[in-house]
């Protein structure tokens, strides 16, 4: 499903990700664990083809990102649910539209989309927030909206970048529960986090990063 082969990524700043090799299968749940600045978000960006490796290859759904045109990238992204570290909610749309947007892009009919948006909002305790705008929500609530937008499309791949950073214990448990449920429904999940507690609570394969390199990859 996701394949990194000898991936190197160099930034203008001199910082680089080096020699990344791993495979993520279609039913896997993988933690991407590492300190701040170790390269977790950059790996996710390579998976959703926002960053491209300087050498080596990144394949997603058997498509090598370096040889994929924009139209195909768009189609690949439609099958990926993403929770960005900075949420990327649209300030000029209410929560309902923000979540529905992901379905709109897939061309889903309004009635079905409506049902799905309400269902997902219910799961994450966001029902009453649907008519509000992002700036009217607390940080943690916005983070849950970001997850709702990722889950609503029933993605084949779910990429979550520190999805509990702004959440208390309880909310965090709810969120991870729904991420696991998505996994159980068949999605492969890549969960970037710096929080060891989280991993201890729900253990799974963990790729550990340190300053741009993988130092550990184990169940």
């Amino acid at each position: 499903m996701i394949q990194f082969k000898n991936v190197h990524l160099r930034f203008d700043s001199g910082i680089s990700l080096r020699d990344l090799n791993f495979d993520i299968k279609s039913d896997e749940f993988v933690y991407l664990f590492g300190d701040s600045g170790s390269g977790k978000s950059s790996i996710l960006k390579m998976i959703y083809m926002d960053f491209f490796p300087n050498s080596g290859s990144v394949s997603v759904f058997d498509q090598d990102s370096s040889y994929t045109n924009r139209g195909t990238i768009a189609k690949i992204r439609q099958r990926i649910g993403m929770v960005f570290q900075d949420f990327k909610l649209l300030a000029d749309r209410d929560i309902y539209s923000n979540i529905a947007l992901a379905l709109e892009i897939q061309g889903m009919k309004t009635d079905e989309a409506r049902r799905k948006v309400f269902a997902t909002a219910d799961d994450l305790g966001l029902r009453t927030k649907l008519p509000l705008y992002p700036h009217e929500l607390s940080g943690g609530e916005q983070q849950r909206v970001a997850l709702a937008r990722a889950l609503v499309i029933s993605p084949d791949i779910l990429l979550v970048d520190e999805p509990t950073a702004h959440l208390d214990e309880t909310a965090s448990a709810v969120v991870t529960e729904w991420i696991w449920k998505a996994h159980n429904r068949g999605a492969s999940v890549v969960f970037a986090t710096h929080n060891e507690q989280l991993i201890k609570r729900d253990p799974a394969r963990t790729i550990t990063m340190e300053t741009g390199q993988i130092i550990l990859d184990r169940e």
Partner: protein
Amino acid sequence: MREGIVGIRRSRMPFMISVFSVAIALLVVGVGVLSVDNGLQYIGDMQANYDLEIFLKNDISTIDSRELADIINEYPGILRMEYLSKEDAAALYNAEFGEDVLSLLDDNPLPSSFRITFEEDYRSAGYIHSFIQSVNILNGVDEVIFKKDLFEKVQGIMKLIYTLATAGLFMIILSTVFLTANNLRLMILARYEFIETIRLLGASDFMIKSPFFLEGGILGFLGASIAVLAIILMEISLAYYHIIDLPVRIMNHPELILGLLVFGVSLSSLGVLKAVRRMLRFVA
């Protein structure tokens, strides 16, 4: 404070500003086209007055002058020929000088005359000269006065006006297009967040462009409609207050209305499309 800012972002302000800009731009274009049309029409009317005056001998009879008219009318290129009797001439003279000067005299010294206007194609110095020569030798013709001076000056002025007006209009349309395009580019630049986000969510270039294209069309249509309405209002109030009597009005020229609408819609939709395209390339 955040609410306010987000309010601005949420509001359709950039859209409304752009509609307003398109409306102003098209208003200028529309008024420009109409002004040039009206000006040319007005000057044309004045010029078409007459080109040549044939004064008849003082003692010519009415019958002879009729015959003469028939002969002259045979010449090619005559658009209009008008007979001025001695009395008409006197009336005109009085009208021009505002006093009944001639009534003080026993006899009317003014001759009767024909005023001739040539068709556009025949209005060349060469043809008119040969015309004068052959008319001059006809019986009963006293003198032929070619209003050459006036004729050429009006021609010259018209040419100048026409050149200036066309150049000006062209320049105005061009700068209008540029200014509007700039406006639309700024409008699109303000939407980078939206474009970035939906792209990350898997929107294809076509999916990103088409709603903008549509929005541009709506924007242009609104702008053009406002411009047309403003022009109609201006015309109505000009007529209502009897300020000027316009020979050419947009109300009588649906093709001009249509033209402005088409221009507005295509300008805006293509302008927006181009701005989005450029942005998509920029963020490739």
